[in-house]
């Protein structure tokens, strides 16, 4: 839904900006939109900015972790940016700290991480080929 997400292209990466109140319906349309955009553009990475999301609770944390897994299945890296201090504390208290998800402080740092993850992966693959 355009009300709750905006997708921007930054080179080979997508910047997905989520905002407002995320409920079941909007989450479904966000997943649809992000996955089809990653597939359509053959994006190498997706940076998901959550600084504009009203409430980040364990439900939204699950949604974000799911979104990251979907992007990875489509062959791209994903990272989350914009978790504020209070949100970080409450997610840890809720036991919803998304252990497998890469996070970043800023969009710039996030983009750098996506590239680094790609570099690491390609090194590993290269190693695999050589040995």
């Amino acid at each position, binding site marked *: 839904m355009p009300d709750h997400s905006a997708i921007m292209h930054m*080179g080979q990466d997508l910047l997905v900006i989520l905002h407002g109140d995320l409920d079941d319906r909007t989450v479904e349309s966000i997943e649809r939109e992000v996955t089809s955009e990653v597939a359509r553009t053959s994006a190498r990475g997706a940076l998901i900015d959550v600084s504009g999301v009203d409430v980040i609770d364990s439900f939204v944390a699950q949604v974000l972790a799911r979104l990251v897994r979907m992007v990875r299945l489509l062959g791209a890296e994903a990272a989350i*940016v914009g*978790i*504020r*201090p209070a*949100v*970080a*504390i409450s*997610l*840890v*208290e809720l036991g919803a*700290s*998304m252990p497998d998800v890469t*996070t*970043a*402080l*800023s969009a710039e*740092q*996030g*983009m*750098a*991480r996506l*590239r*680094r993850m790609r*570099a690491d992966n390609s090194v590993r693959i290269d190693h695999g080929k050589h040995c």
Partner: protein
Amino acid sequence: MAVDPVAVVEDLAYYTQMVNTITDYAVIHLDNEGVVRSWHAGAEHLTGYTAEEIIGQPAAVFYTVADAAAGRVEADLRTATAADSQVTEGWRLRKGGAPYWASVVLTAVLDQSGPAGFGMVVRDLTAGREQALMLRSLEQLVNSIADLEVIRFDCDGLVRSWNPGAQKLTGYVAEEVIGHHVSMFYNEDDASSGVLDREMTGAARDGSMEAEGWRIRKDGSRFWANIVLSPIRDDQGELAGYVKVARDLTERREQDQLVQRQRDEILELSTPVIQVWDKVLVLPLIGTLDSGRAARLTESLLERIAADQAEVVILDISGVPGIDSGVAQHLLETVEAARLMGTESILSGVRPDTAQSMVHLGIDLGGLRSRTSLRDALQLALRLIDARAGSRDEAGIRA
């Protein structure tokens, strides 16, 4: 003055009949010597005497023994004669001696031939007097409370009563506030956002309502008030207004805040976050770590991370006497929260005995990197940052 004798007789019959229908008053005719000459149902109702018992008796039987002995009967008759009429209140006796508080109007009656005795109208005010005394004592009670504002306002919020405590608290005198709306004591924000309406509805619903907030004095200064609002209901249970009791708690609030500020400052001092390098923060932990301190520490660390955009944070535990599972849990939560923001953590200052006891206690630090000295930890931090910057530069070159 020419008086038609027939008309007088008819009028007399008419008046006698009228007097007989009065039951709330005793209307008694006394002769010139103060002897009872007429009687009726109202008089019997009030005093308990029947006509047979009382007609021909002196008026002194109505007076208390002390009054009668002091010559009050004669004095009253003399005053009534001199002034045509006398209005008094005082104790009188019923048949059997029970006293009642009476309002007495004694009027000298004249006919063509001269003085024709007295008309005495008596009313029992005992109940009214009790009520009046009760009201007065309540009023005095309220007025004697100098440190509390005790006021009454009606359902529309218009002030109906005011006490010296209210005057002392707000600076307004009764004339300035009675009839005005109570919102004059609220600041503009509270008045417009309906705080008062909520207080009134809450009090009416729950039988009482306590609140605290800023209120305004006459001179414009404000005070922190604790108020208790209670609804007043009439005999039918209908809401008739409210009683408000207010106290000035400004001083107590200031003291509370001072204590809180000092506590915050102590916490602040005990949880310093130091920036040792570009994008590297060190949090030296000193002393015991309870959950209050740990929460505060996590909070201030995360705020610094956001402010400095720190990529690595070093948690130095060399100043912590012992790491038990509680402390380890706090540390891990801090590390997790920092990771959610995108910052990596390094543990430093782990001593051999600490390492042993942590493993023996089954404390699992997950993937947290750990170093024995702060120097080693800082080196690791710089390598991590270099690696990231390197990838960023590479990416920049490639792009």
